[in-house]
């Protein structure tokens, strides 16, 4: 973790010191995943080759991100932000009463959102793969599979909207720009 310190006379006008929170892999995967999901959504039932390529990109990112969640840098690891149920409920209670404390990494609600988003994306990708290649050793695909695929994609889109709402609310609550932090990787300590 590096600290950018203003030096000497420049201190007064220099921006406040920040610390590196999100490593480059976390940031690249985050924005690539967002772009891939958007592309897959927009090309659904239209440009199938692009839709499938975007879907496979999503699947690969879910794999790499969860592996990085086991072995990655401090704030990339799921240990750092996936709460126990009690911790999640306590945070939501604090949020409702406006007393939620600031976290350097993801807050507990954000941690739950990450798992839900990745699970939604995995379910969407899995049902998409099943539509393309069939389910091993099972009945041929029916309309049901297509509906599950669409429902999973829609549910994931709803989660994305909740995620964006959470980012805005958390940014306002703690007076920091979380979107910029996910671009630069840096936050105030």
């Amino acid at each position, binding site marked *: 973790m590096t600290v950018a310190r203003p030096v000497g006379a420049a201190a007064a006008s220099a921006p406040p010191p920040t610390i590196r929170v999100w490593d480059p892999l976390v940031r690249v995967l985050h924005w690539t995943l967002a772009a891939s999901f958007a592309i897959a959504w927009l090309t659904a039932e239209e440009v199938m080759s692009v839709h499938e390529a975007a879907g496979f990109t999503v699947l690969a990112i879910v*794999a790499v991100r*969860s592996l990085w969640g086991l072995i990655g840098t401090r704030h990339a*690891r799921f240990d750092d932000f996936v709460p126990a149920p009690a911790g999640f409920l306590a945070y939501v209670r604090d949020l409702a009463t406006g007393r939620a404390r600031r976290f350097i990494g993801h807050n507990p609600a954000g941690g739950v959102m990450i798992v839900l988003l990745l699970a939604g994306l995995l379910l969407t990708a899995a049902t998409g793969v099943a539509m393309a290649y069939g389910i091993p050793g099972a009945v041929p695909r029916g309309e049901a599979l297509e509906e599950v695929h669409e429902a999973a994609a829609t549910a994931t889109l709803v989660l994305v909207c909740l995620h964006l709402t959470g980012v805005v609310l958390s940014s306002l609550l703690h007076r920091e720009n979380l979107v910029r932090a996910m671009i630069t990787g840096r936050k105030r300590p």
Partner: protein
Amino acid sequence: MIYGKLSAAALLAGAVAVGGYAIAMETASGQAPATSPASGEALQPGGAILTVPEIIDQVVAQGYSDVAEVEREGGGRYEVKARNPEGRWVELYVDARTGEILRSEREDY
């Protein structure tokens, strides 16, 4: 925290399983043996995607009848609903380039 490790491991396992399956299926259909169907028509391994009428011809030539549905799937395959030589409704996965029947399953939904 155990919840972090569990969720990361579950997501990783799921993604690897689904991705591995897709890669296996893609590899298998790419290595379709170049045996000629009953029609004796020349096959086009790795060639152009066959048209729907060509797919119907290929399937009928292999003893299937009453072709009711032909749908282009991802992964270089068609999905065809027809009666098999025994008269039973089946759903076929047909290689879109060679016309080879990759899988035949009872239509039971």
